[in-house]
């Protein structure tokens, strides 16, 4: 779409320079001993250790595990959230007789359920998936309900006038109209999925980035720890960018709306 030259001009050099300057300052502070934290490695040491981890394959294995679980949990949550959201959004009776329950259960801080999942499923991938699923289904569900209930009644009238069947009406009218709201829910759910995957791995499941992070901390390997933290951050940015791009392609009007601040 944009030519390389224009793309190059759009790069925020000032911003990147600041980032580089901060890293250089950090490096200088650690090297000169101005910052006397015992466990604060210099950026160069972090980069070196990240390179070692990538070369040995540890980083790749951890990233792959976390990515798989995140995407699987997210897909499950999306399927259930959109399905149930359609049902509750389209049927006023179902909405009336369940929305208050949903609001109450949703108020429970999701992380406090991690110990329950740990009790029920032990240290396993099922525990991880359950947690991710349970937490990230909510934003999809709530946003789908909101989107479906917010479909303009004129559109529904048109569908009725055209004598569309229920399935056609949902596929051709309701879903496209509710899509911007659903996409917001999906984006929130994806960042939540990654966070919860890392949490579950930190507390229980002996695989993935979260676990690698914790073992690096316990082994007092701060360079490795920072490298894993960096990997988690890059993974988060990457996933978010992919979904944002996909959303912009699917529903151009929705890309203007961003889930501001609500990240988890």
């Amino acid at each position, binding site marked *: 779409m944009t030519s390389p030259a224009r793309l190059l001009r759009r790069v*925020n050099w000032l911003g990147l320079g600041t980032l580089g300057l901060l890293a250089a300052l950090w490096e200088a502070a650690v090297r000169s001993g101005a910052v006397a934290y015992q466990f604060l490695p210099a950026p160069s040491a972090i980069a070196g250790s990240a390179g070692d981890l990538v070369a040995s394959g540890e980083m790749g294995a951890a990233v792959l595990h976390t990515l798989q679980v995140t995407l699987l949990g997210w897909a499950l949550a999306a399927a259930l959230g959109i399905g149930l959201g359609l049902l509750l959004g389209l049927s006023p009776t179902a909405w009336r*007789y369940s929305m*208050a329950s949903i609001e109450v259960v949703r108020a*429970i801080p999701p992380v406090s359920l991690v110990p329950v999942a740990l009790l029920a499923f032990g240290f396993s991938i099922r525990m991880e998936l359950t947690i991710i699923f349970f937490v990230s289904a909510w934003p999809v569900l709530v946003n789908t309900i909101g989107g479906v209930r917010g479909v303009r009644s004129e559109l529904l009238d048109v569908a009725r006038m055209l004598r569309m069947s229920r399935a056609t009406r949902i596929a051709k009218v309701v879903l496209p109209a509710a899509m911007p709201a659903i996409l917001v*829910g999906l984006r929130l759910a994806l960042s939540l999925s990654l966070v919860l995957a890392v*949490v579950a791995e930190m507390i229980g499941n002996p695989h993935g980035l979260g676990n690698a992070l914790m073992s690096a*901390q316990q082994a007092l390997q701060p360079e490795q720890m920072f490298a894993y933290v960096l990997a988690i951050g890059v993974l*988060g940015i990457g996933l978010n960018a992919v979904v944002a791009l996909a959303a912009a392609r699917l529903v151009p009007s929705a890309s203007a709306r961003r889930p501001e*601040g609500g990240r988890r």
Partner: protein
Amino acid sequence: MTASRSRCRPSFPPLRGLLPLGLLLLAWQLLGSESSPYFPPPSTWARGLQRLWENGTLGPAARETLVTFTLSLGLATVAGSVLGLAVGAFRRVDRAVGPTLEFARAMPPVAMVPIAVLLIGYGEAMKVAVVTLAAVWPILLNARAGVRTIDPVLVDTACSLRLGWFDTVCKCTAPALAPSIILGVRVAAPVALVITLLVEIVTRVGGLGGLIALSQRNYLSGQVYGLILVAGLFSFLVNGLVALLEGAVLRNRPRS
């Protein structure tokens, strides 16, 4: 954004919607086995809580969580407003620190826990640092967006009245920014609570979260469920309080 706005603002959905939840709990109570290690019925939750209350661990733990939460949210509000103001007011600063902020924001706060533990050690300061870092973003971003949408007429008025820098901030900028900052606080409050519990669960340093993790470790599942209920109550109260605060600040203000 729009969804979160409409969610809290109008009325709660009809109360008969609580029916399925009630039925579920009733069925759980009737069909569940008292000795189930995974899904104990609600009566054991109450007993677990009562035991914790009687041996005097519940009160201090709840207070500790509350202190960490309040302190962090307060710090995040101050830091977020000031930073957001600075970043929003000057285009060049925004451009310079933008990518750094974006990158820092993308870091899951959980991942900060091990780093904070190594650098600061187990304790209250570590908890506050992690929670503040997580809660500062919504406030910062909203303050930044708020500064950009300030009515230029307001600034011009301050200029023509020859208000000093300090007076301009106090009398024009701050009141004009209050709604956006409050909106940021409303997003940040649940985040701060969740991260507080999370840090406590992960590090087992005191508080409700620490108590939950401890009960889970000792397989006292009734206690775990009871404590989760308490955490839910907390988050309910926090959301209610912040909504009240928002109402109080935004009263007598024409809706923009």
